[in-house]
């Protein structure tokens, strides 16, 4: 069949039947015939159901599977039979000081790194929100950190943080300060790296928010001789805040889950985030049943933040 029959003029000439065979020449005659008769409902189901099925099998089913294990004392590296222990795993976890300290470390990390990202990112966006030569190139360059692999970023920041010969200590005159092996600074060192990596994300979202503020509002403010601070707090901030909130929730969610960057950077117990604790419990101590229970506690917290995120996402979308 000649290709040009697919064009609109070809349709008029050749009519329905021959066209059906153009698009579907690769299929066998049986499905070709079926294709002509597919209803929108069939097509909708065909398009949507495989994806839903795939996600259920590989995301939801595993979670049900692990919910079951969370009530047992199963250990994946031993072959002895496991027993049903009821809520014991959850009770033990919630009364374990070690876990609570992981929660506190994670909370500290989330607050420091997300606050840092919001301040640096929004600050950068305010600076970038004007026209100047090579703006596009500079914005793109600023986005590079967040496109990189967090594990590899964690690795090469080890080089930057090295005591004695590391460029960071040299630049700031910190001498032998061991960022990553000092229990007091390890967590903050990871947070600084995370701020470096993810501020561009906040910047990107803020820029979109800033560019959506109608110019005539600023013009009206200028006519009224409104001060710079007044214009910023009464026009810019209120109009950008919905997108800032999206960035805040999204980053909080991601920071809460942080694993790779912290795991490759430091082994300090003071920087042991919840996800790292979970990994160690599951794949180093092989305390599988208990780690499934911990996974569920983490999961519920993440879902709560996700819910918030989607709610605000839809709100911004509707605007």
């Amino acid at each position, binding site marked *: 069949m000649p290709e040009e029959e697919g064009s609109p003029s070809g*349709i008029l000439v050749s*009519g*329905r039947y021959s066209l*059906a065979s153009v698009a*579907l020449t690769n299929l066998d005659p049986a499905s070709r015939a079926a294709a002509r008769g*597919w209803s929108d*409902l069939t*097509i*909708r189901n*065909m398009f*949507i159901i*495989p994806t839903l099925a*795939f*996600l259920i099998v*590989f995301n939801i089913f*595993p*979670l049900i*599977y*692990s919910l079951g*294990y969370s009530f047992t004392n199963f250990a*994946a590296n031993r072959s002895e039979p496991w027993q049903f222990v009821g809520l014991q795993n959850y009770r033990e976890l919630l009364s374990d000081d070690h876990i609570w300290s992981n929660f506190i470390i994670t909370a500290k990390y989330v607050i420091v790194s997300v606050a840092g990202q919001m301040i640096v990112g929004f600050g950068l966006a305010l*600076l970038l929100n004007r*026209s100047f030569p090579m703006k596009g190139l*500079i914005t*793109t*360059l600023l*986005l*590079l950190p*967040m*496109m*990189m*692999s*967090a*594990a*590899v970023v*964690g*690795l*090469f920041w080890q*080089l930057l943080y090295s005591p004695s*010969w590391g460029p960071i200590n*040299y630049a700031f005159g910190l001498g032998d300060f061991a960022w990553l092996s000092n229990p007091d600074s390890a967590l903050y060192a990871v947070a600084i790296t995370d701020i*470096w990596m993810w501020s561009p994300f906040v910047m*990107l979202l803020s*820029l*979109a928010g800033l560019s959506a503020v109608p110019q005539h509002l600023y013009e009206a403010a200028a006519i009224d001789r409104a001060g710079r601070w007044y214009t910023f707090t009464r026009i810019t901030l209120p109009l950008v805040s919905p997108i800032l909130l*999206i960035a805040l929730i*999204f980053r909080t969610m991601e920071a809460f889950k942080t*694993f790779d960057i912290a795991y*490759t950077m430091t082994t300090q117990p003071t920087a042991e985030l919840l*996800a790292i604790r979970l*990994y160690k419990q*599951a794949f180093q101590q092989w305390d*599988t049943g208990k780690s*499934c229970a911990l*996974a569920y506690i983490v999961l519920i917290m*993440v*879902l709560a933040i996700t819910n918030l*995120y*989607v709610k605000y996402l839809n709100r*911004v979308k509707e605007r």
Partner: protein
Amino acid sequence: MAAVRTTGEVALNRIAVVAVLIATLIFLAPIYWIASTAFKPKELAVTVPPTVLFQPEVTPFIRLFTKRVQMQKPVDPQVYEAAPWWEKRVYDGGERVLKVGNDVQLSQYPNRFMNSLIVAVISTVLAVGMGTFTAYGFSRFKMAGEADLLFFILSTRMLPPVVVAIPMFLMYRIVGLNDSHIGLIILYVAFNLSFSVWLMKGFMDEIPKEYEEAALVDGYTRMQAFFKIVLPEAATGIAATAVFCFITAWNEYAFALIMTNRRAQTAPPFIPSQIGSGLPDWTTIAAGTFLFLLPVAIFTFLLRNHLLRGMSFGAIRK
């Protein structure tokens, strides 16, 4: 900018641009450092003060790709003369390249790099393919509980990887998919699919329904309209989604760390594991990191106009 520009405003603008340039330099400094370390002679990698200017060389990349051993005594001058240029560089460092017969033994790096490429490419094709169909379904047809389904799809992406990895590890152990490409590909498709559906739905929503309706009136079936009208219109969106999925799969660490250890191990868990104990050879590690980050850097430039929607699940457009 305001209608009236005062001298104060012009000055403020200049200050802001200078501040942007300084901030950009600070943000790029770590990337410059890793890239420059990849081209440094070994002895200049860990100096006090840090070396900024030096004669670049490719020796770290030669070391990255070859298996080497430390030599006990200096190399025989005749052997040295007969060696190709890259082998001489290795001899210069007091090491020799391991060989089987005349074949140079490669290090594990190229293999890990290939694993990353295989897993990322195949999982991207599958995730974007399925995502495109599903996004079209959601975009064009009414469905009861559509918002809930979309939330469900999105929420699968939000799960912490380690939480999903524990049961998947146990299930893979039963069916023998641990440390296999297929196992990792399935995980990455599941991980990227939600993302691809959300992103593609945004692109699909932007294609006017009238295009297909005109085609339907002209005698196209729904499927033909999809393949001949919608897909070409969505090509840019598909490409952008594909690059995003590729970068995510390429960068992924937690699943790869847990699910693979030798055969199917990808570069992200492999590169940090090279540090080992003792004083690491940072130039070789930097060379591996540099090569690994290069594709992502190139893609970032290709994607720059789509970055915003990609990073926000397509919800916010530029």
